[in-house]
């Protein structure tokens, strides 16, 4: 195991940022710290980097106790959401910074920087100032700068959070490919579950200073440990006392399986059809169908239908009554 976090706690005044957190982060993998804003994931990342000190607990990096080490001595690469570019230095000098600090020979620095600039596709921008780059280019520069010192671990704090949707998607794919090339142990923080599911090998879900679940994207999606993880990882709707995914629900225009309901609204969203129904008990339920499924059913508003959960689909039991929301929560993709 590459990074061991043992019983770490951190407070800022009265605010508990991390509450007795223990996580093992595997070597050579791409791990996401996923959770809502203010949940403590960035604090955990900054504690790993040494930019923040834990009140209690222990941090071990590649077998070395790093708990009391200053950031300078940890050999971690850190990439910030807002790039933290050294504005007065050219792209080349930015990337070379860590190597210059380590007093590497000039020609070695030059060679290594050229390699990295090629890796992040910024060769032709080497002599520019950061102000002359786009956001995506700056973030690639920041990544090259962090990688230049051959860090034991690479830490990224919401690395794509300041970029617009299209660039974010491109950089996400690119980060995945880059990681497949360089295999450095990588931890990145995100509040975007789609980003985590798409890029990470392993996801740590953190909320209110606690770890909710650790697992592969499939584990988390198919076997959510609790209601929070279920809600956070994708759209949910409620059927009886079960929290389920709208696309895991099946509709039948007849028969006796499932629960009887009446269609209240049909909305087309791109290739999906969203069908809102109300059960005879008055519970509103959202079902998403593909266009073909919908057409095959031949239903419309006020049709009598039966609704049931497809066999083998994940669900969790709604625990606290106050979380029984009348409206199905489809807004979890935004933060």
């Amino acid at each position, binding site marked *: 195991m590459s990074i061991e976090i043992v019983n770490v706690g951190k407070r800022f005044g009265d605010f508990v940022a991390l509450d007795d957190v223990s996580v093992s982060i595997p070597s050579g993998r791409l791990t996401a710290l996923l959770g809502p804003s203010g949940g403590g994931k960035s604090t955990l990342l900054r504690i790993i980097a040494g*930019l923040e000190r834990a009140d209690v607990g222990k941090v071990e990096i590649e077998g070395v106790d790093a708990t009391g080490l200053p950031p300078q001595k*940890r050999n971690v690469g850190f990439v910030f959401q807002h790039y*933290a570019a050294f*504005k*007065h230095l050219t792209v080349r000098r930015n990337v070379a*910074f860590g190597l210059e600090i380590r007093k590497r020979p000039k020609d070695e620095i030059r060679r290594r920087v050229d390699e990295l600039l090629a890796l992040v596709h910024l060769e032709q921008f080497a002599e520019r100032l950061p102000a*002359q780059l*786009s956001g*995506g280019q700056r973030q690639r520069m920041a990544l090259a*700068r962090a990688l230049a010192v051959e860090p034991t671990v690479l830490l990224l704090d919401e690395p794509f959070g300041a970029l617009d949707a299209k660039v974010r998607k491109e950089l996400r794919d690119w980060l995945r490919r880059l990681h497949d090339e360089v295999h450095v142990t990588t931890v990145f923080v995100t509040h975007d579950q789609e980003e985590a599911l798409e890029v990470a090998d392993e996801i740590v879900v953190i909320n209110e200073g606690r770890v909710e679940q650790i697992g592969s994207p499939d584990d988390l999606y198919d076997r959510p440990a609790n209601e929070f993880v279920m809600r956070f990882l994708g759209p949910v709707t409620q059927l009886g006392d079960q929290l389920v995914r709208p696309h895991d629900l099946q509709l039948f225009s007849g028969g006796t399986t499932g629960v009887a309901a009446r269609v209240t609204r049909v909305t087309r969203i791109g290739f999906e059809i969203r069908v809102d129904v109300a059960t005879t008990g008055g519970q509103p339920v959202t079902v998403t169908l593909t266009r073909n499924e919908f057409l095959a059913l031949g239903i419309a508003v006020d049709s009598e239908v039966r609704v049931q959960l497809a066999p083998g689909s994940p669900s969790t039991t709604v625990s606290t009554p106050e979380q029984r929301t009348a409206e199905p929560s489809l807004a979890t993709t935004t933060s």
Partner: protein
Amino acid sequence: MTSATLAPDRPAAPRRSVRSGLPLTRVSGLGLGVAMVWFSLLVLIPLAAVAVTAAEGGWAGFWRSVTNEQTAATIRLTVGTALLVTLVNIVMGTLIAWVLVRDRFFGKRALEILIDVPFALPTIVAGLVLLSLYGPTSPLGVNIANTRIAVFLAFLFVTLPFIVRTVQPVLAELDPEVEEAAASLGASRYTTFRRIVLPSLTPAIAAGAALSFARAVGEYGSLVLLTGNLPMRTEVASVRILSSIENDNIDSAAAVAVVLLAISLAVIVVLDVIQRRVVRRG
């Protein structure tokens, strides 16, 4: 700039300051005309008159005036002391700005107010203020009145706010993540300051230093009571100009004034160049 969403592959917009505006309308054109007439009558024409008067005596006359033994001594003393004071201000001003921005302690607000006192205090009062601690009745037992140290001290007092006030906002705006990035790349706190923080502050320090130098070179009021204005010893350029005026030797006064004006103008140019470079860096 911090949380702006950037379009792909387009350089970030530079700071607003050089954004172009609307073409002049009839009303605003008239306004500009009135403003320019006023500015010319108040500033441009009088300053031009100084230059013209100095030029009337010809180059030889000008040169004779400024190389007159006593005059040359005042210029040397003024420029030399101003340079020295500016150096001290570069160090102390940056240090004060650093403490005011990065530290938190009881009484910081009071220090903030003290910084501005030399700016608002009438210069003649500034001289009296310094005299009360460093003059003949000093409770410290030092008496620097009528010495060159008094010139240095007076310059130091009146130029105190300049570098502090130009560096402070820049330092406050610095992104702490940049320093954290340097730390995680292995830079010690000193290296981070020298290689990352200081270069970001340099334009502000230079701008403050230029203003501080210009202010010191032109200083008059605070010296009147403090330095005794002894020829060849503590007399500065402004005092020299005034005594020339009082002796009705206007040509000589204008000649020295032109030297001071040239320094002011140079400072204005330096400031403009610095501003442009900062804008380019974004």
